């Protein structure tokens, strides 16, 4: 459904995309994960026919995005990052306008059906200007679904929503992704893990990893880091836990806490706790240090914790 080969985009002297390649199949929800400015929006804009690439090819729904841009645009639903709405229109009129632009017969009926899909049928005649952020996002999503496209591209669909709205939108996306191709971007790791079948991690215009969320998770979290805090003087603590089997990379922090790492699947925390108490320390705290997205990127670019996508 989406086949991208060697896609490159330059903005003036700055190269935003460095020859990226990937594909996405029907019935698959593919997540585009990366920090702001990584090239997610640029890629999506090229795939939706908004702008042409500097180099490389992209085939979407069987058509080339440059040569057959109109055919691609007929088959793609796109929700840009800034939800494009005419605030002076009602939700129904707006969707009817979009349906008319796509030559859908009975545009009013289709507009209403689509509002039902995003659970906004009660507000069909409400002005978009009076809608909350979550409702606007849903109108934007409805616009992307109005022509029942084969490929749906969503740029940060849950950004700026409250937790309940996030869950709602995710459910809608999961539902529509059952028989279509969905490409969505996010910079929230857990979101990608929850709704995507496959995740592409993009950084500085390059795809640095591609896998299922589960595989990525286990590879990325190949080791777990834990912070340990005791009452009073902890000078001798590192030496004590260093001896324990499975404990690596012990580090005394300036604030008196101690950090160490252990391999996933070989949880040494009970032994560490016992050893700390037996050595006469009062254990105050022991908690895992989560890997932030930035750390994952550092990890990914520093060593090959996850195999690099080479094709």
């Amino acid at each position, binding site marked *: 459904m989406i086949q991208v080969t060697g896609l490159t985009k330059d903005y003036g002297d700055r190269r935003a995309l460095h020859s990226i390649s990937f594909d996405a199949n029907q019935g698959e929800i593919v997540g585009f994960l990366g920090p702001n400015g990584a090239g997610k929006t640029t890629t999506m*804009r090229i795939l*939706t026919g*908004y702008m042409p690439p500097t180099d490389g090819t992209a085939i979407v729904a069987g058509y080339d995005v440059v040569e057959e841009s109109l055919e691609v645009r007929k088959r*793609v639903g*796109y929700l*840009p990052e800034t939800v494009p709405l005419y605030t002076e*229109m009602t939700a129904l009129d707006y969707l009817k306008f979009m349906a*008319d632009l796509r030559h859908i017969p009975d545009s009013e009926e289709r507009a209403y059906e689509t509002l039902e899909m995003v659970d906004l049928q009660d507000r069909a005649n409400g002005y978009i200007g009076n809608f909350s952020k979550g409702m606007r996002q849903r109108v934007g999503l409805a616009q992307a679904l109005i022509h029942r496209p084969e490929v749906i591209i969503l740029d940060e669909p849950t950004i700026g929503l409250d937790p309940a709205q996030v869950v709602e939108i995710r459910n809608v996306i999961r539902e529509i992704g059952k028989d279509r191709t969905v490409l969505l971007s996010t910079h929230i790791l857990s979101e990608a893990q929850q709704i995507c079948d496959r995740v592409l991690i993009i950084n500085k215009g390059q795809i640095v990893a591609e896998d299922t969320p589960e595989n990525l998770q286990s590879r990325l979290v190949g080791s777990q880091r834990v912070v340990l805090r005791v009452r009073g003087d902890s000078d001798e603590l590192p030496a004590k836990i260093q001896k324990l089997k499975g404990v690596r990379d012990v580090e005394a922090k300036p604030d008196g806490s101690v950090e160490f790492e252990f391999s996933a699947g070989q949880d040494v925390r009970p032994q560490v706790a016992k050893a700390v108490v037996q050595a006469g320390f009062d254990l105050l705290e022991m908690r895992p240090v989560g890997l932030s997205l930035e750390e994952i990127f550092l990890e990914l670019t520093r060593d090959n914790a996850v195999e690099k996508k080479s094709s």
Partner: protein
Amino acid sequence: MRNIWTIAKREYNHYFISPLAYVVAFIILLPLGIYFAVIVFATSSQAFSGAPPPDISPITWLFCFLLVFTTPVLTMRLISDEARMGTLELLLTAPIRDFELVIGKWLSALLFILTILAITLIFPIILHFMLVSPGIDQKLFLSAYLGVILVAGAFLALGVGISAIFTNQFAAFFVTFGLFFFLWFLVSLPANLLPGGGDALNYLNMSSHFNEGFNAGNINLSDIVYYISLIALGLFVGTTAIEVRRWR
């Protein structure tokens, strides 16, 4: 064609919820009404002294004069505001061609001006049926109104073209207004100063094509070609500006 109409219809409806559009209608219709009343009183008081009966050309002349100031207001936001609001991304990823978007926007503004123009038909109707016997010069009436439509079409096309270049609607307004002021008033000044009459500059003069052609009852092919060329130029600039946006 269908896409052009869809775009134009939405935009035309938008004018009727926009305060600025009502201000534009007011600024055009109020002076026209006052001017018409003045003409009628002046000529009726001179009628006994054998002065010629009033005709419609002062009204159409004033209409075009007011278009210089008002059309930039109608066109300034047409494309620049879509770019600012992010809705241009919606239209540029919809299955419509760039020129359909530009023509649709232009058509919406033209339809709005035509709506105002339709209201002004009350003036020739009053003249024809109530004041002038045996009625007004119908050839002059038709050519003057055709002229107004072409002048409005040219102004609006150039305005849409400029609106496509800018993201700020006020920048679009000032550039558009400056261009119209030059083409309607200023261009004749250097043309008069240059030796040989400055034929090229004279040809550019928008007001002379109207005043000496359509508004004098003469429908010349060269005047029609002139205004149609301006319309084509404006729409071409608009389409190109949108294509350039894609490549940036």
